[in-house]
């Protein structure tokens, strides 16, 4: 791969006008020496180096040089670290400084310094990211115009300053060097102007027939800009049609409300108010961008000291989900049986709740399930107005409707569940949405199909041969980030601009509008959806101007100044849609229920969207691929999860390849024996099985197939689950890389979990703490660096940094793992190396099971450097490379480390990670842009570990000291703490008795892991408390 060329980042304030349509270079014009893109409307264009400017691409270093990558790159602007960080570290750390003269570094000043920017200090821009059309507000940290970190926007009602793993990993997609760069017509490079010209010629024909053959297949969206463009297009071509497609549709939610209330509505679950929650196959705690707010509401009620007391969570689901892991009681049930379960519950409630009288379950339910149902019913009935039943997106409309009926019957409507008009433009994004389109395609009625939905050829259900159908379309156009299955099936492929590269707008689930502003100039000259749609209109207004025009009337006073504040705050005030209180159409629901028949028995196939790569759209994101799945801990693969019973019956073991056959179509998937999984079902996640090349993977220079594709098993009619699955063992085994091989605590008191009664009777935690002071009342301290730092009295320092983890709140969503990876330049090592136990993530999300394999209980324990006051790693290091700071940090000094690995051997928590290979070698220019300039990039042969984000501490400290003040509590947050959707992590100084971390350290639930070793960790844990129902206990 040659060094990618890209125009330089956006600089300065956010009000810069939209770029004039980027002249996409033809293949020919990509040749070296081409003048870099002129004024893109983003103010001046600054280039990487004088060499490039004077001698063009040829002058730039290539990877086949003897020195580490970048050794001779000239830095850009002031950010000399930015581009030299990696090389500097590798040269220095690799010890080459000993034998080579370091090249004289260039300092390139701006010709005109952008206003508002102080080189060396990052800026933060507010924007928004969409997941299936619904937005979460984010803040992007930008260094000299280079976004390197994403945080949640505190002012945004959904993200509330936090994000899930996907938003954190978004940057790895933005800087993916394998993103598409060239606009192609049938494989031949074309320019954007050429494309527009081609469309202009065709539009004449459309204007005659009103665009009868003009069809659009868009991704789900809530963008008002897109909406206005769609209107404009339909005005010009009345017969043109728009369809929306997502492989993870939320149709059933809207169909459910339509059935229950007569119109499509967006339900919102107020978990903070709910005392009893029943999840019907709803994984509502998975921290997705559009639902991340639910985590905090729920977590607040897991605190035994919450004024309303702890909530209680019942979960009914086939597989073991994050939500299932948090459940107080869990029932394994095939998705197909959950309809029946819901009705049986309604029936049971009907005995006490008149509004629910007359419901009947199609099949008789007995035994354990009946017991469960009666207990749940009792609990729910006892908590009218403060209970909540949530149906999952994979469930049928009827389940949703009945769930609404139950909520209505229990008086929860408007209390624990509220409704608004949907923010998305299309409520039908699944089968209903595109069935008509598929019909027209079959009939060959479509002349032009514009696709912006993500890779429909790949995500189409097995019984729809979209690839074949596209052949019938003379003029198929696809806008995508990567060259993929769809791009190969169409005749026009346009490289898409990343949301961080384009102007737009988006609405959150409850309607709040955010302006999407570009953080950087299109790296590969991509085109935004708005630009593409604009190409079908006569006026050539830029999306940026359309956007301003569109929202102009929102301004109460001076538009420009308000626009500024909207951009700065990331939300447009007063745009949240008002809650509606719908009336339940009980008779309609009953009618629908009456037609239900009990589902056929036997094995069921359960398809789920993958926790990490969703429907596959993040498949090329190496951070997410390497993220261990919160439940299975598998990286770089999807698996067929089978229950322990079925596994025993069929003799299935981890990694056995299974042949799954459903209605004639079959695929091979490696098995995974999952405790707590239903024995009547097999769960597989979609989105895998594509041949791909992924950023930063040491052992994958060649494209490799990652995981196994199960879309063929999917049918348009039954997208999520289907009965009648046949499972055969192939007889071969498939290697899986997972980060945790042992799942039990072996009875060791390391991850405490207590029921609330036990806890109130006798909290175990205090027994697991060290004496506060040692004999003589002296505060213990770690080995200070005698040669540089003479003995320090730790109690006398200004700050005493410490951390506390509330395991009651932690769902294991692993957003912190990715956030840490982004903040600290942690490398990706690839499947093979993970399999060899060399993963580098500084946070290891330890997951332990207890109880039986059929109904296990799960406890999550994020494990990272404990910053022990008497750290075992420190006294064994021969060269003083890991020593204590005066404020109690266990410093790891990379440039002093010689890599004996003794510290890791002697670390009882095994939270140190060693650079066994030169993970950071051979990084392309684009990948280097991802690096955080405040953190050293580690080279081969050095140890690394959690530093409590020391770079943040030092920045905040210096800022505070310049102002001659102390760092306030909460002013300084570590990356993991900042992202955590449930506030499970706290960081601060123990010298401040009122700080949150001091509070948690004093909590009766606080305990120290392995306290008996007297390591005196500064990171402590709070016991996980559960609230089981005595009746089921």
């Amino acid at each position, binding site marked *: 791969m040659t060094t990618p060329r890209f125009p330089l980042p956006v600089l300065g304030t956010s009000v810069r006008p939209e770029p004039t349509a980027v002249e996409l270079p033809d293949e020919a014009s990509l040749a070296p020496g081409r003048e870099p893109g002129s004024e893109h409307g983003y103010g001046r264009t600054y280039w990487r180096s004088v060499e490039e400017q004077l001698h063009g691409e040829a002058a730039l270093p290539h990877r086949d040089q003897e020195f580490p990558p970048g050794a001779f790159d000239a830095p850009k602007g002031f950010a000399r670290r930015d581009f030299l960080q990696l090389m500097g570290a590798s040269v220095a750390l690799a010890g080459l400084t000993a034998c080579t003269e370091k090249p004289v570094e260039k300092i390139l000043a701006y010709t005109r310094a952008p206003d508002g920017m102080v080189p060396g200090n990052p800026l933060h821009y507010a924007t928004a990211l969409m997941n299936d059309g619904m937005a979460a507000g984010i803040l992007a940290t930008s260094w000299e115009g280079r976004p390197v970190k994403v945080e949640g926007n505190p002012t945004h009602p959904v993200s509330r300053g936090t994000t899930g793993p996907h938003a954190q990993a978004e940057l790895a997609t933005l800087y993916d060097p394998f993103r598409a760069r060239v606009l192609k017509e049938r494989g031949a490079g074309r320019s954007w102007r050429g494309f527009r010209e081609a469309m202009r010629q065709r539009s004449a024909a459309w204007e005659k027939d009103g665009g009868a053959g003009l069809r659009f297949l868009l991704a789900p969206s809530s963008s008002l800009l897109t909406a206005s463009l769609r209107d404009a297009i339909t005005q010009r071509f009345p017969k043109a049609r728009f369809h929306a497609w997502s492989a993870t549709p939320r149709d059933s939610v809207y169909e459910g409300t339509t059935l229950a209330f007569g119109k499509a509505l967006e339900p919102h679950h107020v978990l903070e108010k709910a005392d009893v929650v029943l999840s019907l196959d709803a994984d509502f705690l998975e921290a997705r961008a559009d639902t991340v707010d639910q985590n905090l509401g729920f977590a607040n009620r897991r605190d035994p000291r919450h004024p309303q007391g702890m909530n209680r969570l019942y979960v009914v689901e086939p597989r073991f989900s994050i939500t299932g892991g948090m459940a107080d009681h869990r029932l394994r049930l095939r998705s197909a049986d959950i309809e029946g379960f819901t009705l049986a519950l309604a029936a049971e409630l009907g005995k006490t709740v008149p509004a629910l009288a007359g419901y009947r379950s199609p099949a008789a339910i007995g035994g354990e399930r009946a017991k469960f149902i009666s207990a749940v019913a009792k609990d729910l009935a006892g908590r009218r107005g403060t209970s909540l039943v949530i149906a999952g997106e994979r469930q049928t409309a009827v389940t949703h409707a009945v769930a609404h009926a139950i909520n209505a019957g229990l008086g929860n409507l408007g209390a624990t569940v509220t409704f608004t008009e949907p923010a998305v433009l299309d409520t039908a994004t699944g089968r209903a949405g595109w069935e008509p389109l598929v019909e027209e395609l079959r009939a060959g009625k479509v002349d032009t199909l514009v696709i912006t939905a993500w890779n429909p050829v790949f995500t189409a259900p097995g019984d729809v041969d979209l690839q074949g159908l596209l052949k019938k379309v003379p003029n198929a156009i696809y806008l995508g980030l990567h060259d993929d299955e769809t791009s190969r099936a169409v005749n026009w492929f346009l490289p898409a601009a990343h949301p961080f590269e384009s102007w737009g707008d988006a609405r959150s689930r409850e309607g709040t509008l955010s302006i999407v502003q570009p953080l950087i100039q299109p790296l590969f000259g991509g085109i935004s959806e708005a630009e593409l749609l604009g190409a079908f209109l006569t006026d050539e207004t830029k999306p940026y101007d359309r956007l301003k025009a569109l929202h102009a009337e929102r301004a109460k006073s001076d538009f420009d100044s308000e626009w500024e504040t909207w951009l700065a705050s990331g939300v447009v005030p007063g745009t949240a849609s008002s809650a509606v209180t719908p009336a339940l159409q009980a008779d309609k629901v009953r009618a629908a229920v009456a037609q239900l028949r009990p589902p056929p028995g036997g094995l069921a196939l359960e398809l789920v969207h993958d926790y990490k790569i969703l429907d596959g759209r993040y498949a090329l994101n190496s951070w997410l691929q390497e993220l261990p799945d919160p439940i299975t801990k598998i990286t770089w693969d999807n698996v067929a999860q089978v229950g322990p019973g079925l596994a025993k019956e069929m003799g299935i073991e981890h990694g056995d390849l299974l042949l799954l056959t459903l209605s004639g179509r079959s695929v091979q998937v490696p098995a995974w024996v999952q405790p707590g999984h239903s024995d009547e079902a097999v769960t597989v996640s979609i989105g895998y099985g594509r041949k791909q090349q992924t950023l930063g993977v040491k052992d994958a220079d060649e494209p490799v197939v990652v995981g196994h594709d199960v879309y063929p098993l999917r049918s348009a009619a039954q997208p999520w689950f289907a009965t009648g699955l046949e499972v055969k063992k192939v007889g071969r085994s498939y290697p899986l890389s997972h980060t945790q091989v042992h799942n039990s605590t072996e009875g060791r008191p390391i991850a405490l979990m207590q029921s609330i009664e036990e806890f109130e009777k006798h909290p175990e935690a205090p027994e697991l703490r060290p004496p506060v002071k040692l004999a003589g009342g002296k505060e213990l301290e770690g080995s200070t660096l005698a040669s540089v730092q003479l003995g320090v009295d730790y109690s006398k320092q200004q700050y005493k940094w410490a951390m506390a983890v509330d395991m009651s709140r932690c769902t294991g969503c692993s957003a912190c793992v990715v956030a840490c990876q982004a903040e600290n330049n942690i490398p990706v090592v690839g499947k093979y190396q993970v399999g060899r136990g060399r993963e580098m993530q500084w946070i290891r999300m330890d997951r332990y099971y207890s109880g039986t394999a059929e109904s296990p209980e799960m406890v999550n324990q994020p494990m990272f450097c404990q910053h022990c006051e008497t750290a075992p790693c420190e006294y064994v290091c*021969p060269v003083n490379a890991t020593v204590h700071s005066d404020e109690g940090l266990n410093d790891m000094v990379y440039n002093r480390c010689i890599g004996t690995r003794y510290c890791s051997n002697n670390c009882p928590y095994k939270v140190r990670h060693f650079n066994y290979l030169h993970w950071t070698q051979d990084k392309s220019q684009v990948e280097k842009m991802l690096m955080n300039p405040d953190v050293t990039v580690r080279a081969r042969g050095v140890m690394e570990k959690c530093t409590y984000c020391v770079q943040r501490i030092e920045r905040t400290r210096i800022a505070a000291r310049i102002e001659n003040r102390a760092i306030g509590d909460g002013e300084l947050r570590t990356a993991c703490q900042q992202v955590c959707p449930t506030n499970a992590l706290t960081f601060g100084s123990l010298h401040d008795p009122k700080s949150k971390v001091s509070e948690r350290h004093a909590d009766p639930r606080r305990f120290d892991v392995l306290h008996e070793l007297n390591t005196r960790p500064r990171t402590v844990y709070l016991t996980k408390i559960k609230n089981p129902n005595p009746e089921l206990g």
Partner: protein
Amino acid sequence: MAAEHAAAADAADSLDTAPLMLGKQDNTTLTGNLLAHVWARPDKGWLLSFLIALSGSGALALAITVTLVEGIGAWGNNIPVGWAFDITNFVWWIGIGHAGTLISAILFLFQQRWRTAINRFSEAMTIFAVMCAGLFPLLHTGRPWFAYFMFPYPSTLQMWPQFKSPLIWDVFAVSTYFTVSLLFWYLGLIPDLASLRDASKSTLQRKVYGIFALGWRGSGRHWHNYKVGYLLLAGLSTPLVVSVHTIVSFDFAVSLIPGWHTTIFPPYFVAGAVFSGFAMVMSWMVPARHFLGLKHVITMRHLENMNKIILATGMLVSYGYLMEHFIAWYSGNQFEWFVFFNRATGPYRGVYYLMLFCNVLTPQIFWFKRARTSIPIMFIASILVNVGMWCERFVIIVTSLHRDFLPASWDMYYPTWVDITLFLGTIGFFSTLFLLFLKFIPAVAVSEVKELNEELQHRPAPITVVTGA
């Protein structure tokens, strides 16, 4: 064999089970037959084995190159198993180095006559073993080119090594041990190099041996200084025999990992070291005395005594195992107990049982005189003990690390081809040096043997150690 037993019958000393020297020897015969193998042209056997050994050294060079170019990632090590083959080999080789100093120093001070014939042999072994051992501490670091950070020198960083770390102690212990052993060995060589010089046929040989003989003329003054120096070095290296492996054992004992954090380690490691050291000497001496025709000076008496020591140290090692397990149980510490439970039942149990068989059962056979004096048995036994001692180090290092405190961090270790090549390579390197030694230097301290011969002839003659007073 039969001949040796017959000879044993008319032993000079009726208390001696077997004579220290067979037949009537005088200085001329001794000079002749002890230097013979140096003058003899290398035979096919030697050439063949040297070729094999040399290729082994080649493999070592390759493995080292790969390690330096690729990084430690070329090995199987991971987190939690940060040390594996590398440190296992280090400890094993250091241990093997122990026989030499023990024989030359301690047995010398205890005036054990039978050491004379075998000390040269085992000292050479010490030096070569320590050379092999020394490779690993350097190679196993992630960035060997910065290894100089471990030495205390006034740097512009104002940084010093961390003297609390056992690894620093290692640096000094091992280098001291190597230096002293080398001097000791060379000092003993000087008179023999001189006799080689004098017996040389060609001028070149004469000159070469002459240079290394450092102008030895065998004058009374020379002999006097020689004896004094020899005694001093013996005194110096005696504590080293104990200290080196004690300090190596600190690498583990000082940590807090269950299975490492054990106060019994120092004595138990030293015993193990002598155990493996003698075994290695045995494995080489049996063939060597046969092929080099040294049976008359390295007699069954020597071999038997060594077997007795192997038995004794073997018992010590077994006691070490026993105590480890007992304390693990008695301590009531669940982490500690789990480690030993895991050694016996975990994924690496095979190595564990092999270790028990080789180190505990095998030496027991030496309770029987028939076994002690049977060449094939002692040869096989010595090989087994070497295998067993390697397994012991592997068990201690890998099984303790791969499952320690937090079950979520547990993982497995599998060696790569580089690991294995490195290990076999050092054996090849060791053999190369040793074969060269056997070719160019008298494998037996001629002068000392002559001295011993005098004593044996005019007995009762107390062995007098000239102290220079």
